[in-house]
Every structure is written in C-alpha cells, then in structure tokens.
C-alpha cells in the first residue's frame, strides 16, 4: 500500500497561538499528533539568580515580570514568603486590600485566558469583549498603584498606600456590572455546538494523573480534585471569605473552561465580601527599613490564577537570599501537554495550549 510519512512541524517560537515564545515540536500523521515536545527557555532571564544577588526589596520587582498577566499574585506570594521569613504580619486592613487586589487580578488573568483561548478556537468577538472587562480591572489596578501590569504593589508588612478616594466604589461598580458581562460570554460559547465540539473530550486527564503531573489550579480542579490553596491552607484573610471551589468531572477542555468561568464569579464574590468587611486602620505594620531576616527557610504557596505559585526562600542572615526559588504552575502544567495532545489533531494543540493557560514569563522565569 501507499505509505505516508510522518510530518514534523515546528509550532513556534514565533507563532500566533503559542502565547509567547513557546516552541512545540510536533510529529504528525496526517493531521493527527503522534508526538509533541514543548521546548522552552526562550524567555529565561534568570530571575532566581537575580533573586540571589539582589536584596529582598529589589527582588520583588522581578516577580512582576514572571507572570506578567497576574503580577499581583506573584507579588503577594513573594512578599508572604519574606514576611514569614522575617516573622512579621501584614496590617489587618492591608490583608483585605491584598485579597481584593489578588482576586481582581485573578479575574483579569482569567479574562485574558478566555480571550486568547476563544481566539485560538476562532471565536473572535469573545476576545474583544474579555479585553474590555480586563481593561476595567487594569484601570482599577492602575488607579491604585500607577502601573497596569508590573504592579509591585505589595510591601512586607502591609501595603505601601491605602486605596485612593473613590477606589472602593469603582471596584464595587465593576463587580456589579460584571455578571451581565459573564452572561454575554456564556451566550456566545457555553452551549455553542462548535465550541462544545472543539472543547469536549479534548485533552482529558484524570485527577490522579493530573496530581502525578503536579498540575494545580483550575486544570487540576477540572479533573475533580478539590485542591485550592485558598481553602486548604488559607493565607491572608481567605479563611473569612465564603466562596465555593468549582470542580469539574471529566477533566477535558470544556470542564476547564467551566471551572475558570465559575472561578471568576467566585472571585467577584470574594472581592465584594472583602470590600464590605475591610476594617479601617493603618495599612503598614512596623518593619525594619533594611530587611535582614534571620537564617532559615520558608516555602510558601499561594493560589495563583494558573495554579499553585510557590516561593522557596533560604535566608543566610544577610539582606540577600541564599536561595530564591520560584515555583511556576505554568511550567508544571505545560509538562502535561504531550500527554494531553496525543492522538488529537493539529487544531487541538492550540486549544490545549490555551486551556493550560500558560504564560511564558512564568515558565521560563
């Protein structure tokens, strides 16, 4: 019979739907993926090395540049690690502020995910709708700290400044308007036959396998494993917040879509609760000007929009960390791509890269 050869194609590092400089080596049989091998490192900037050569305050700036879609979450986890190393706590009002900002950032990050994911699958309008809402959040974030993406908003011991006048009202307005916008996305996608055809049963992964792969965040919860750091090991004031952790049952791309959409709703609820409960008072506790934590080590994890963000800091008693390790959820999640993609078609690989919600800055660090 006629033999067909496997076709090798190189997806990226310059490709419209690899969300940055990811490169995936694909082996195709017709349009079916036989093998895929993600190649990363194109955005490697040595954040860990820098973290071991700069002092604790300087290093926070680098955390912005890792997961640049969700900089506040990266700031937060790093500062928590520093605080824990120092043995200080954030001021109570600051803790609420952190939760509000982190949850707004989570919504913004999920919006970018939905936008790009939908665009990858060809739904162009969703992209623009999502960016409209994200812009509103970025305006809020900019209104607080002056920067849209590289926020550097959080300080050890609390927050640098209180919310400006009228900020909480604007945040509340956004939260009031947001459900209607989410409904708009649902009309376009949730029961759209093409959308369901493109996402259902694509990249199915069982909860057990996902855990073994170390997948965390919405991708893990879509496979039915109830692990959310905000519930499992509450940090800041999450223990006072009432919210649900949405779980999927199948573990396919559609479930991951549903889980993330529900997370946006829950995040909105958290923001509203935190806004209501936020006490008055100072936003900064007393913290020495030069941060020189006693020797020792901490490993702190947070629930980032993409999964479990980890920071491992080892102090040697000076103002510079002996070891500064950033654990990236994207790095871990991307590792499962070959497993998810096997047997699917070329068109699905972009859906899968989208569903893993990767940020190359976070992967390569």
């Amino acid at each position, binding site marked *: 019979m006629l033999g067909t050869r496997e076709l090798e194609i190189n997806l990226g590092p310059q490709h419209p739907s690899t969300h940055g400089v990811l490169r995936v080596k694909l082996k195709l049989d017709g349009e079916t993926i036989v093998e895929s091998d993600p190649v990363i*490192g194109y955005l490697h900037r040595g954040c860990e090395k820098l973290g071991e050569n700069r002092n604790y305050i300087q290093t926070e700036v680098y955390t912005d540049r890792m997961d640049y879609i969700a900089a506040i979450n990266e700031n937060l986890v790093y500062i928590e690690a520093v605080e824990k190393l120092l*043995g200080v706590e954030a001021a109570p009002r600051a803790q609420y502020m952190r939760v509000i900002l982190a949850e707004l950032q989570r919504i913004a990050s999920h919006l970018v995910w939905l936008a790009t994911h939908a665009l990858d699958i060809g739904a162009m309008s969703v992209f623009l709708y999502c960016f409209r809402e994200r812009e509103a959040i970025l305006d809020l974030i900019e209104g607080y700290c002056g920067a849209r993406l590289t926020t550097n908003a959080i300080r050890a011991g609390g927050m640098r400044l209180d919310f400006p006048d009228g900020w909480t009202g604007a945040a509340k307005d956004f939260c009031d308007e947001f459900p209607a916008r989410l409904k708009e996305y649902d009309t376009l996608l949730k029961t759209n036959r093409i959308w369901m055809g493109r996402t259902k049963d694509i990249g199915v992964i069982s909860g057990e396998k996902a*855990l073994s792969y*170390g997948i965390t965040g919405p991708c893990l919860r879509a496979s039915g494993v109830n692990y959310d750091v905000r519930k499992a090991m509450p*940090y800041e004031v999450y223990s006072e917040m009432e919210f649900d952790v949405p779980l999927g049952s199948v573990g396919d791309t559609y479930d991951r879509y549903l889980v993330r959409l529900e997370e946006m709703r829950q995040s909105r609820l958290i923001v509203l609760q935190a806004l209501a409960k936020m006490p008055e008072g100072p936003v900064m506790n007393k913290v020495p000007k030069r941060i020189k934590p006693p020797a020792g080590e901490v490993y702190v994890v947070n629930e980032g929009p993409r999964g479990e963000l980890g920071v491992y800091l080892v102090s040697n008693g000076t103002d510079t960390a002996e070891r500064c390790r950033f654990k990236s959820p994207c790095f*871990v999640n991307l590792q499962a791509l070959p497993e998810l993609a096997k047997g699917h078609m070329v068109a699905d690989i972009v859906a899968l890269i989208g569903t893993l919600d990767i940020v190359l800055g976070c992967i390569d660090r």
Partner: protein
Amino acid sequence: MATTEPPEENGSVEQAPTSAALDRLLAAMPDAVVESEFQRGAPIARVAPARLLEVMTFLRDDPACRFELLSDLCGMDLGMVRPDGERFDVVYHLYSVEHSHVLTVKTAVADGTDAPSVTGIWLTANWHEREAFDMFGIGFAGHPDLRRILMPDEFDAFPLRKDFPLEGREKDHGYWRQPGDDDRYTYVAEPPEKK
C-alpha cells in the same frame, strides 16, 4: 478554624510545631532520616540519597502520609554554606491533598554524583529534575530524558551555581563580551582585542 490567622502564618517559636507526617516517617523508617527539624513551623526531613526512593515511595503510598503532590523540586548550591560537605541539596516540597499537610525532604549530593530520580514516583519530577540539572549540573540517576531545559543545548555551564558570575562570562552563547561606553556591554562575534 479557630483563629482567624492560619497557623502557618504565625511562625512563633514558643509554640512547638508538630507534624503527623514527619512523626509517621520517623516511626516507620527511623534509620532513613538523617536529620529532622522545623523551620518557621514547617517540617523538614533530610534523607540519604541511597534511601531516597524508598522514603519517597513510602511518603506517597502510606495512608497516613499520602503525599500525592510533589509541589516543587529544586536544587540548591551550598558551596559557601557547607564548604566541607556535599555541595548540593535537592529539595522536595511535598503536599498531601487528602490530609492537607506538607513536608520538605532534602537530600545532599556531592558535585559529580547523581541523585536518584523520582520521576517514577511523580511524573512532574521530570521537568523539575531537568531544570535542576540545567541550573546546577546535578545528575539524576534513572531520569528518562535528562537534557537542558531552559538554557540552550550547547551551553556548557550551570548558571545557578554560586561560582557562575551574575553578569555572565567572557564568552557565552558563542559571543564575546565587550565593555561599552556607559557601563554596558555589547556582544560581538570576534574576541575583543585586549588592551
């Protein structure tokens, strides 16, 4: 939860921290654990490389431990801190979804020797070990595909080692560093003339 503050945030020294998982490990395999301690309330167990796989398999499968998630795996260069001992530590951060507890496992590796690979226990270790190899040059015996991951394939050093200069070497990635006017460097294909 009784207190509004989660216990891990306290980090108070007066309260003696405890860990059921560490106790269970010490009870089941006392000879495997070289040393155990608490750092800011978190349990840490140091294990000899020879017993590592055994310990890790136990930690994953034992019903009282059930560490299904290898949260992080990283290398660490202790060349300055521990000049006489093994140069590297490999640090494993474990988490159990079932019991919601954590444990940090460490193992010491000398320069040029391999740590055992835990890829057979957690699939996620694959890339983490590649990264540790890429950054520190720590080998992992039994790893299915140990090659560089973040640095280019032809790179011949290990950038996170303490002796690797922050600003890079004279010649990296095939290009030579040439001092420019304002404290910045330019990179050229030919070796710059020494003045």
